[in-house]
């Protein structure tokens, strides 16, 4: 017997693939593959209709269909709608620009760069799909301009017809993509949003109630949970957009849905005040007061629900909302001390915020029972500097590529301008991710050029029917679409789906000119490369700098609240801080989020105290305290607030206004605690 014989049975053993594992893999890949098929179907339909209508450049319809397709239905439909709006605005803009600068090359090209810069600014200012619409208005103008520009610049006067044709082709693509996606995908954004809203509302409510059971160091441990919840609330924004895109009945209720985020921020702010105050109190006093408030919270809201229970909130939000309404009675809780008043009022404010969030949940569950919001949402600009940097970069990039084109007399220079504008405007809102995303997009475009060359010169010459052509483009579009639906290198695969059809340039009478194809491919890659270079040379503000600026601007606005006319409500201030919270980069420290939440509370209390102090002739004392806040002198502010508290306490305990005074004393307490907790932030002198 030797070693070879001993090993023989082992070698003969056959290893079959694990079928269960294979089936699991196929099941997980199925949605992505289905998306690839949908994208391919949408492109084929758009091209078929455009060929049937005998449009000039039918491929723009196919390219539009590919660009509009998104792995989630809501995103696709919303994107399609905004794309139509952006296309129309861009088409009108280029016609106006052409009319303003007839026979004037410099004026026209500078106007185009300025339009690109304006759209870049708006793309950063607006959010989600509205930002996409602004970006599209910019590069639609560039696409039409590239068609009408002569060899080295200057409009040829055919702008109006080109705008009509290009806009029609793009709209055909959008409608086809919408029809294919809506017919084959029923969407899940509405349900996803309902579940996320329910989970967040239930978790915040449960943890708020849980705070009353915690005393001592356990309270400070809840901080990290609260700060993570702020991040999760911020992440709701794109899901709301998707849900609005998917359901037409939600579109008219857009402000109510947006108000849900404000409600959740208010709830977190209230919870923060409660937790901070309980931390400051002695444990036995904290225990007694916490028990009083806890007794007034309905049992349904007292514990953190399990995952299944939280989903129940999404199914029947009305009953939870009614429980929340009962808890609002906390504002009428008879309290003798400012401390108890603070706990009751802040808990009530948190629950009012939750009730606002539940209004959104009710709207998602049953729009007929939706409660109209009385708050008018006002638009606030979180920070102007990133907008100016992005628009400046867009202007410089477009002008640089235009100059390069004019100086080198490159025949495909106009296409390079278009794709430079696309890259620099579209990826600007990605901030610190803009460069890597544009580079991935450029690599994807280069790969697409290779695939398009293979299909165009090796496959299509033997194809004579539309069915054969569809199968040929499916060889690239289906796998690229499927890969685009997974999280790895999304920008690269998006470039593959978006640029494949323009590179292939299918027409009723195909042209197989290799030189023309090479020039077009080079121009597209060079254009995207110019955009990537622009992001490298004129980089966006770093996340750390953006965060520091948002904090400094909020502090500056907070200090402005201490002077000037007294605001009637805190809505404007809250909206301003919510916009800054939403603009905080993902990389922001949890402490920095907490500082913004503290500023929100201090600002709200300043507005409330100024009204109350005016009513009870205590303006001078409050002004002295607020002056110290404005100067960043925390200890003086706390001391003067304590003096104001004493003066309010010295007034009669009965009679009109007693409850208002007690509430104001609660506000003073909340404000003093917030100032003390974040002294390093509020003492900053530079923001004054």
């Amino acid at each position, binding site marked *: 017997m030797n070693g070879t014989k001993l090993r023989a049975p082992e070698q003969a053993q056959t290893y079959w693939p694990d079928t269960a594992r294979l089936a699991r893999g196929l099941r997980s890949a199925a949605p992505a593959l289905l998306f690839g098929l949908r994208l391919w179907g949408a492109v084929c339909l758009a091209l078929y209709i455009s060929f049937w209508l005998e449009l000039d450049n039918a491929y723009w319809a196919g390219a539009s269909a590919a660009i509009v397709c998104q792995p989630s239905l809501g995103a696709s439909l919303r994107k399609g709608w905004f794309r139509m709006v952006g296309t129309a605005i861009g088409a009108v803009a280029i016609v106006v620009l052409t009319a303003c600068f007839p026979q004037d090359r410099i004026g026209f090209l500078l106007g185009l760069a300025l339009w690109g810069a304006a759209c870049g600014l708006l793309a950063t200012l607006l959010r989600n799909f509205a930002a996409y619409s602004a970006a599209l208005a910019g590069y639609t103008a560039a696409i039409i301009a590239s068609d009408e520009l002569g060899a080295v610049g200057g409009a040829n006067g055919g702008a109006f017809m080109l705008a009509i044709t290009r806009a029609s082709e793009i709209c055909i693509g959008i409608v086809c993509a919408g029809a294919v996606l809506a017919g084959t995908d029923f969407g899940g954004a509405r349900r996803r949003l309902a579940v996320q809203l329910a989970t967040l509302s239930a978790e915040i409510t449960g943890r708020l109630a849980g705070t009353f059971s915690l005393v001592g160091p356990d309270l400070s441990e809840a901080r990290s949970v609260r700060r993570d919840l702020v991040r999760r609330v911020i992440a709701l924004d794109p899901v709301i957009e998707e849900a609005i895109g998917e359901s037409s009945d939600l579109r008219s209720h857009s402000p109510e849905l947006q108000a849900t985020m404000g409600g959740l921020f208010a709830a977190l702010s209230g919870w923060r005040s409660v937790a901070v105050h309980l931390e400051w109190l002695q444990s036995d006093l904290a225990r007694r007061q916490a028990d009083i408030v806890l007794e007034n919270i309905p049992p349904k809201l007292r514990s953190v629900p399990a995952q299944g229970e939280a989903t129940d909130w999404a199914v029947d939000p009305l009953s939870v909302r009614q429980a929340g309404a009962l808890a609002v009675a906390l504002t009428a809780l008879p309290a003798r001390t400012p401390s108890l008043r603070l706990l009751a009022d802040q808990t009530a404010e948190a629950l009012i915020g939750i009730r606002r969030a539940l209004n959104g949940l009710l709207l998602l569950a049953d729009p007929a029972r939706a409660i109209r919001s009385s708050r008018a949402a006002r638009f606030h600009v979180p920070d102007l500097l990133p907008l100016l940097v992005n628009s400046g970069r867009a202007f410089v990039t477009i002008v640089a590529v235009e100059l390069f084109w004019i100086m080198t007399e490159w025949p495909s220079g106009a296409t390079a301008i278009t794709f430079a504008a696309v890259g620099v405007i579209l990826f600007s809102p990605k901030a610190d991710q803009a460069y890597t995303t544009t580079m991935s997009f450029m690599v994807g475009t280069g790969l697409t050029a290779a695939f398009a060359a293979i299909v165009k010169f090796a496959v299509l010459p033997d194809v004579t029917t539309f069915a054969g052509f569809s199968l040929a483009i499916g060889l690239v579009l289906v796998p690229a679409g499927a890969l685009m639906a997974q999280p790895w290198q999304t920008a690269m695969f998006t470039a593959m789906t978006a640029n494949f059809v323009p590179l292939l340039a299918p027409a009723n009478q195909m042209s197989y000119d290799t*030189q023309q194809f090479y020039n077009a491919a080079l121009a597209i890659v060079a254009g995207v490369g110019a955009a990537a270079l622009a992001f490298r*040379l004129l980089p966006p503000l770093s996340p750390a700098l953006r965060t520091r600026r948002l904090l400094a601007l909020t502090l500056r606005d907070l200090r402005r609240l201490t002077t000037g006319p007294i605001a009637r409500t805190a809505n404007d201030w809250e909206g301003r801080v919510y916009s800054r919270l939403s603009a905080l980069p993902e990389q922001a420290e949890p402490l920095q989020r907490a500082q913004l939440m503290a500023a929100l509370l201090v600002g709200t209390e300043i507005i409330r105290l100024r009204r109350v102090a005016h009513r009870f002739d205590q303006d001078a004392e409050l002004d002295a305290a607020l002056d110290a806040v404005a100067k960043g002198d925390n200890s003086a502010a706390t001391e003067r607030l304590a003096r104001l508290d004493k003066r309010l306490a010295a007034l009669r305990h009965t009679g009109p206004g007693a409850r208002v005074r007690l509430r104001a004393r609660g506000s003073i307490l909340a404000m003093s605690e917030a100032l003390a907790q974040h002294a390093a932030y509020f003492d900053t002198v530079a923001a004054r």
Partner: protein
Amino acid sequence: MNFTEVELFGVYVAPISLMMAIAWLLLIAFRRVADHFTLLRHVWHPALFVFAAYIIILSSIVLVVAR
């Protein structure tokens, strides 16, 4: 002067594209050396510096070919 088009897999490409590719390869080598001696840490705007170096390399190649 030798700026004739170059045949690449049956397609005639502009000579500048090849020069750009060569300049890019030289730039990679230059960056490796700069990274090794941590030279880029002493530069105000590293990306701008590298871009300027690329333009210098490319211009030098064009001048050498044109001679």
